Structures are given as structure tokens and as C-alpha cells.
């Protein structure tokens, strides 16, 4: 069974594949257009000094989003390779 977690709870430095995504809302359409789609691999780089927003790496570039948006994006963590 596939275990999904919220993108906002992903560990710093960990990678994950985006699985589920809200259909409506301006934020999510924009995220999609920026290349964050179901099936895309993202890596959580860091959080801002005060813990929000988050910085992720997606398709080779760095993108920020707020925790309130990341909470609605479900991802499947990729086990770190040994």
C-alpha cells in the first residue's frame, strides 16, 4: 500500500513524489503551472528562518510555497538510497 504524507510534514532534505492535489483554487492551479503535478518528484530544501514558507526543488529549480498550501499536497516519500 502506498503511504502518503502531507508535503508540509516532509523531512528537510527528503524527496517525495506528488500524489494527490486539490482540484480547485488559484494556488493549486498556479502550482501546477509551475510544474508541481501528480507524479512529479520534489525535494524539500529548507524552511524560511521562521519556519514558513517552505522551499522545494522541482524540475531543477527552487520554488517557495506556504505551509497552508503544502498541507493540501499529499506526497509519497522516496526512501533514501543506501
Amino acid at each position, binding site marked *: 500500500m502506498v503511504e502518503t504524507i502531507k508535503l508540509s510534514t516532509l523531512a528537510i532534505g527528503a524527496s517525495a513524489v506528488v500524489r494527490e492535489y486539490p482540484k480547485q483554487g488559484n494556488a493549486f492551479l498556479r502550482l501546477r503551472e509551475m510544474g508541481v503535478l501528480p507524479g512529479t518528484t520534489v525535494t524539500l530544501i529548507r524552511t524560511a528562518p521562521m519556519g514558513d514558507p517552505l522551499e522545494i526543488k522541482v*524540475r531543477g529549480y527552487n520554488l517557495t510555497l506556504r505551509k497552508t498550501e503544502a498541507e493540501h499536497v499529499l506526497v509519497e516519500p522516496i526512501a533514501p538510497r543506501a
Partner: protein
Amino acid sequence: MSTAPTSPGPARAPVYALVGNPNCGKSTLFNALTGLKQKIGNYPGVTVEKKIGTAYSQHGHALTIIDLPGAYSLAARSPDEAVLRDVLLGRRTDTPMPDRIVCIADATNLERNLYLIHQILDLGRPVILVLNMMDVAAQTGLVVRAARLEKELGIPVIPCEAINGKGLVELKLAMSRHDLPLSRHSWEIPAPIAPAVSELAASLVDNDQRGPLIARAEALLLLTDQDTVRVAGSRPLSARTTEILRSWEKRWQGQGTDWAGALVNSRYDAITELCTHVIERSAVKTGASVSDRIDAVVTHPLWGWLVLGGVMAALFLSIFTLAQVPMDWIGDHTAALATWVKHTMPAGDLRDLVTDGAIGGVGSVITFLPQILILFFFIGLLESTGYMARAAFIMDRLMSRVGLNGKSFIPMLSSYACAIPGIMATRTIEDTKDRLVTILVAPLMSCSARLPVYLLLIAALFPSAAVPVGAKVAIMLTMYALGTAGALFFAWLFKRTLLKGEPPLMIMELPPYRLPKMRDVALHMLERAWLFMKRAGTIILGISIILWFLTAYPKAPAGSTDSQQIAQSFAGMAGHALEPVIKPLGFDWQIGIGLISSFAAREVFVSSMGVIFNAESSEENTAPLRDALLAAKWPDGRALFTPLVCITLMVFYVFAMQCMSTIAVVKRETNSWRWPLFQTVYMTGTAWLVCLIIYQTGRALGF
């Protein structure tokens, strides 16, 4: 016979549009193509910059180039993006539809850059694709095969390093071609959506007078663009097309079809497919990039704040030290010019109008210039290096508490130096409402023109040398803190009431750090300064002349002193008329004149007080004026400038809107008199109310 879009007649220079993501090197390319042959203005009715330049083809023919705002998608989220969309779709009445489009893509980040370009290929216009930053791509281990991309898309693809001028000749050659091909790239529109696209496209042709190719592109766009961002100057859709769109949306909603998502997905599928042929990643990936390593420090929980503090300290230090020299120079020379005119022209009203009205007015416009230039130099530097996005990233959490996002931070901070560049810098804020809120509160940040007023009043407050410097500094800092708190409070209030909107997004790219190209930074700085002169200059000059008139007329009998003249002038009358309103704050009519004259610039208060109280004083030595203030009395013999009145007056200067230059800039940036008027009323009203509370409470407590 009308000319086909692909082969413009010799009578008119073909119009090229320059399109690309933010941070793809578009401005550098635009500057390289056009040199200084640029015209900067505004799209009528919207505050989006319109940049048009002229380049010359390899054969010496003139080419018109429109530099469109950077965007990630044709589906608009901001006025900038709406203008891009509307120009490309030919929806704007004030701008011709471009004949050809030059797309610029950052080769280091091709997939995301291609999203916008993929949408543009649908438009059915000839497109040239420029792959910029090929050198950086090679350094990071990416091999981008331009020839293969050219073959896949069927349009010219030109590898380029805009920053070194490499690839420019090839680009100009391509732009000189008469027979630019259309893209032959095709992609699959998801089956449930395809019939809607056809129906919408047909309706666009029949009811909205679109060409068949562009109709299909616009139909696709209507499905991802909720059309929430409408800007003035663009034609609305016909009722029939809107009706078709709504009925499809309703049907899909019923079926649970995620139409917008499906479209974006299939576009990205097509792009990913393209990229597998075009991009080769060399096997070795050498850990963290330079940018990642810089960010590890710059966005570090501890070092990040220190770096931010250091950058801001450097900014303010250079404004206060570097700007002072040219400002003094400008002040001296306008004064010298006025003196010269006084000696050469015959005495009379015309002479006074020239010296005191016109020269004084022009002087007050250009004394702002050094500060504005330095601030815009820094802002340009921060933007082109990539640090600006980091500052927004760090400050977002704090700004979100008042309902704004990190992008409002730099404009608000710049306003500590001067609200004018701060307000002009709000153009980077995408959301219209957030931008307006930032403009409305920015002048509450204590600007440098308030400093001389604070200094004079603090001197009057503590005339004895025995008072420790610490107390004076503490009062000064309190005034700055009060202004900042006011700005944050009103931002919070406006976001909750007047300009209620969705919480702003913070979906923002953190571009890789790059060395700034000084020529672009300098051009950006000069552009801004020119815009300020052009937009605000005439209004400021006009108000200066009115203010001069108010203090110079009606004339006092010959032989009167300056202070007698001002006392019986219109300004003096206004001061008297104002007295009942400001008496509850402890101010008399003479302070009233000072408040009115502050509209020229707040520091004018100091010189007005000098004239009114007959005290010779200079910036270096305020002691004579201070003593004159302390000697001033109400008619009944009470002291006028009591400590309580000094404090109250300082607080008035913290909150009141008294700067005509700011009003002029807000008028230009919001495109109406409504917002600057509202701003003047709410700020000055707050000043009055807060001062009333302070003064009356102080009196009740026996001060």
C-alpha cells in the same frame, strides 16, 4: 490586399514581442538588441510598464520590439500577466498585435520555461526560440541540443549567452528572415475537453472576430484562465462565448472532471516528452550548486537575519552619506540660480514667481533624485543578483501576520528613506489589493524628510545640554517605532476591511544567484528616475507655485519684514482659519502655517518656522531657531512650544500625509485621485486624533 502577418509590408516595421519567464535574461537581451533606443511608458489605464524599442536587422531594416512583462503562464494572475496575455491575443486596443514573437528560455531550467512557450506556440504566430544561458547550463552538466529542439518544434532555435552578447547575430539574422515558419509541434488535448475547445474556438471566430489559429489558443486559455484578472483597455468576450464556457464548466463540475488540471498535465506531458530528446544530463552531479551553498548561509535561521540586517544597513548608510553630497549641491545651486535671477531680472511679481515659485519647485523635485537613484540602484542590484527573492522569503512569515506577503517588505523598508521609490517599487507585488495596501501604508514609515523636523523639536524639547544623548535618541526611535506600528496596523486593518482579499500566495521562484550586469542595473535606475521626473514633476511644480502664491499674496505694505508678510498672506489666513481645528492639539496659527507649508516637503517646516519667528538658522546650527521657538507665546502669555506640544507635533508629523510628491506618485501609480485623497484623509485624520488624545491626556495629567 492586406498584408499577411508573416510577411509585413515594407511600409511598417515588423512588430516583435519579447516573451519569457521572469529571470530568464529577457531584459538583458532587450537592452542588447535595442541599445538605448527604448521608449518607456504605461499601458493606458493600468500601471504596467510598456517598453518599446527599435532594433536593426542584419540588413539594416528597423524592427519594432515590445518587451512584454515576464510571466510563467498566459493564464493571468496579475495585471502584468494580464497585459502579456491581452497583447498576444490582440485584445488590447492600444497596442498592435505583434507580427512575430521571440521567446526566451533559460536553458538551465528548460521544462518550466517551456510551459509558457508551449502556450505561445498555440497562438499560430511565427516564433523564434532563444535558449539563453547556455554557458551556465553547460557548467551545471546539462547538454541542451538546440538543433534537436529546432527539428522537433519546426521553428528557429538559437543558443545564446545574452550576457556576453553571444548568439545575438544569429538571432538578428533569424529576425530578418521573411519566411518564418509556424511551429509544427502538436500535442494531445485530453479527450473529455477536446469538443469544448472546438466549440469555443468556433464561437470565438464567429462572435469575437478572431482568426482561426488564435481562436483555438484562446479557447485553450479560457479553460485554465479563470479570467479573474481583467485590466482596463482590453476587450471583453462576447456573451455567446462566455455562455458556452459557463455551460461546459457546469457540465464538467457535475461529472467531477478536473478540466484545468487535465490541460496543464497534458501540456507538461508533451514538454517532458520533448525534453527527453533535447536534454542530456552528464552523469556526474557534483553535490550542491553554488547557489545552494550561498542559500545555506543567506537563509540560515541565524546568519540569514544578520545578512539581511547587513544589506539593509549598507543601503541606509549609503543613502544617508552618499545622497547628502549631491543633495547639498543641488540645494546650493538652485539657491545660487535664484539669487542670480533676482539680480538680473527687474523686481516684481514675475521675478518672484520665477525665483520662489518655479526654481524652488523644480529644486524640490530634483533634490529627491539622489535618494531615488541610490535606492533604485540598490533595488536593481538586489533584484538582478537574486537576493530580493530571499529577502521576501525570510520576511514572509512576519508580513503574513498583517495579511501581506514577503514582497511588501522591500517597498516598506525603502520608505524609511523616502516613500516615493518605496511606492514605485510596489510594482513587483503581483496581487493588486496587496499592492494597494502597501502603497497606502508606505508613507507612514518615517522618511528622511521628517528627520530635520524631529531634530528641531527634540532640540526644543531638551534645550539644556545636560540631557543625555540617550534620551534624545530614545525619543527619535519612539517616533520611528510609532510610524512602523501605524503602517503595520493599517495594513492589517485594510486587508480585513477595505481591501479584503484572499490571503496572498507565496508561490515564488528563488532564482539562482547571478552576478549583476551593471549596464542593466544602471539602465533600470535611470528609467525609474526618469519616470519619477516625468510623472510627478509637473504635479510637484504646480503645487509649489500654488504654495508660493499662498505665502506671497496679498502683499504686505512696503517695508514689512518677511514674518509680517507671511502672517498676512493667504497662508497666514489659512493658518488662522485652521487654528480652531488644531487648537485642541495645542497648535496655534503659526504652527498651522508650518503644517501647510510642509506640503512642499516636510523639512520645509524648519525653514517656515525660521521665517515666521524671525530666526536665522542653518542645518548645522538650529540653536537660534530653537531659542526663538522657546520664546514664542500664545497671546495670553503661555509658552507655545511646551514639551507636551513638541511631542504632540512630532507625533503629528509621524502620521500626517504632508508630502505632495508622494501624493503625486500615488496618483500615478493607482491611476486615480481617489486613493491619494483617501490616503491623505486617513493619515491626517489619524494624526489629528492621536495628537488630540496625547495632548488632552497630557493636559489632564498636568503637563
